[in-house]
């Protein structure tokens, strides 16, 4: 009974309170801006889940966010804080574009799509592997390395695209010749105009595969064991360094897969800056999704709704308000996560202990 109660309290009640805190904060923000909360919220719902196009946009945005969220979640499961999602995502998109540009246009889709998707994963994975190996071999802190690698990767891509590959007067490459993934609207006409595409199916498979790997395989178990307590895992015979670089390789590949969504699924070319912060938002997605693949998927849908809804309500409130709201959601949900609450309690305990 008490176990059930605890699950109810932590799993249902706490997130509900977090959501309501965010809603009330949102109400107050909207009122502070002189608008009616009811009107704004209903416009937000109407512009996202209320029509097929808006819903398609939510799916599109959630696809990328799921990938970057998984990339952070898998790192955290191994006890690593992967802040390199942005660079990994951009590298993945670039890899897909290069493969798509290189393949002749006659390549059958059955061959071209896996090759392009594979290229995205390889490109993202290699960017992820660097901090993984540096951590395993030299103990270099992954937070520092992933952050710095973001700058290096983004600057490099920026240079190579604008100096060599861009169509004049633009910041994007030519359209890929092979490997384009069809939009969902090709099959479901109601989605017309939305960017949602078949990358979604690939990403759903990736969510399932990540879950299977983490909770049903031996390496997944080892990875989680390393994340919980590396010394104990080592004592138990697990090769900690190997688990680390494997986790980062997978994280990078998953983030890289997100690049497929824009490059092969939406625009058909690589555009400088397409990642647009989705890599960093992945941290929030993983946190709110509590590092569980399914949780990440749901959190990605939630943040995608906020992002698309932000456009819809832009007529009434400025974009910055939606960003503030996003921040409040992250804070509120973070406080509802038992692990975070425990950490805060410990920190508070230490602080008062020292004060005495």
């Amino acid at each position, binding site marked *: 009974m008490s176990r059930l*109660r605890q699950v109810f*309290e932590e799993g249902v*009640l*706490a997130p*509900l*309170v977090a959501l*309501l*805190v965010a*809603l*009330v904060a949102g*109400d*107050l923000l909207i*009122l502070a801006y*002189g*608008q*009616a*909360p*009811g*009107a704004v*919220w209903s*416009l937000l719902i109407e*512009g996202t889940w209320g029509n097929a*196009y808006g819903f398609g*946009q939510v799916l*599109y*945005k959630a696809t990328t966010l799921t990938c970057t969220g998984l990339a952070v979640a898998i790192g955290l499961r191994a006890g690593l804080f992967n802040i390199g999602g942005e660079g990994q995502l951009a590298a993945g998109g670039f890899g897909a574009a290069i493969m798509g540009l290189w393949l002749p246009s006659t390549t059958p889709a059955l061959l071209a799509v896996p090759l392009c998707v594979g290229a995205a994963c390889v490109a993202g994975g290699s960017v992820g592997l660097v901090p993984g190996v540096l951590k395993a071999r030299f103990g270099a802190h992954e937070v520092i390395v992933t952050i710095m690698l973001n700058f290096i990767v983004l*600057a490099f891509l*920026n*240079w190579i695209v*604008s*100096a060599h590959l861009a169509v*004049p*007067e*633009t*910041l994007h490459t030519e359209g890929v010749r092979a490997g384009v993934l069809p939009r969902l609207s090709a099959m479901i006409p109601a989605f017309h*105009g939305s*960017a949602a595409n078949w990358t979604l199916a690939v990403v759903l498979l990736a969510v399932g595969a990540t879950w299977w790997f983490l909770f049903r395989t031996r390496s997944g178990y080892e990875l989680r064991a390393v994340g919980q307590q590396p010394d104990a895992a080592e004592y138990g015979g697990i090769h900690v360094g190997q688990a680390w670089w494997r986790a980062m390789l997978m994280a990078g590949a998953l983030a890289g897969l997100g690049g497929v969504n*824009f490059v092969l699924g*939406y*625009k058909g070319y690589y*555009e*400088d*800056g*397409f990642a*647009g*912060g*989705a890599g960093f938002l992945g941290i929030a997605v993983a946190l709110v999704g509590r590092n569980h693949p399914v949780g990440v998927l749901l959190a990605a849908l939630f943040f995608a709704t906020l*992002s*698309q809804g*932000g*456009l*819809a309500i*832009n*007529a*009434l409130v*400025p*974009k910055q308000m939606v*960003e503030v709201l996003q921040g409040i959601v992250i804070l509120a949900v973070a406080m509802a996560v038992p692990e975070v609450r425990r950490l805060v309690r410990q920190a508070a305990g230490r602080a008062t202990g020292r004060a005495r």
Partner: protein
Amino acid sequence: MRKLLFVLGGLLVAHLALLLVHPAGAVRLPDGDALEVGVVFDLGGRGDKSFNDGAYAGAMRASQELGARVRFVEPGEGSDREAGLRLLAAEGMDLVIGVGFIFTDDLTSLAREYPDVAFAGVDYALTVDAAGNVVAPPGNLAALKFREEQGSFLVGALAALVGGSKKVGFVGGMDSPLIHKFEMGYKAGVRHVCPDCTVIAQYAGVTPEAFGNPGRGKELALSQYQQGVNVIYHASGSTGLGVFEAARTLGRFGIGVDADQYNEAPGRVLTSMVKRVDESVFNAIQRVQAGTFTGGVYQFGLAENGVGYVYDENNRALIPDSVHARIEALRAEIIAGRITVPSTR
């Protein structure tokens, strides 16, 4: 757990109560038959003191003078550009404007999809087909382009006449065809009034970051000033803030770009080559209202008051009357077509 339930209940009540509040000044979504205009900003968004703010000013002027209802969308990421345009087009706006060359593709495809909506793209990039011919934008899409080279010509002449040195400087942002327009116009202006003057032209880099590197701008400017340059014209976004910084340090002059940048270094900004994005946006809205809007390429040069240079009470003391008269004469000659300003290398 009881406590948590109380909190939950309290929040729920608060939320429901707040939902019912309806402030007096709340905006209701437009209805009726006023002219409706939607503007989607570039990712930089409002507050850039240049491009986006120019579009905003033009739209607000249209709202005051023409009674247009204006809605703005600020995208958060790449796919939001199309989404923003589509949102506005689907609502049946009369005119949808994308601010920045980056909207080119999205505007082209949406203009085809919504033939009844008028579209306009500030700095729309014209594409060239395989045979080398310029591809015309769709019939309901106006490409608002600027003759930056004409305005640059005038500030070039001004720099040579006021500088008192045989060397004048230019600092560009990203080494790209767009910025070459500024450079070529500027050089032509310098040479027109001072055939034996040399222009030291340098670029901050080859990537878009070159538009946001004040440190590099200062470095380039200091070295140019030390070579005997007295006036530097920058076309380099916020990199130019470094140019002004150098001008302030050494007591020389800089020339601003896009908007009036006098306030970046009061007393040290000789003038600014202004690009009247506001004018082009207002103009497009006005055409839609008058029913004379058609697609195609609109060039905003000196004649259309689309580019120009700043001459007001702030910098009047820096520019002798005779020089001002000379520049005005040059302006008239360009407008009359007696001087053709080059725009490419």
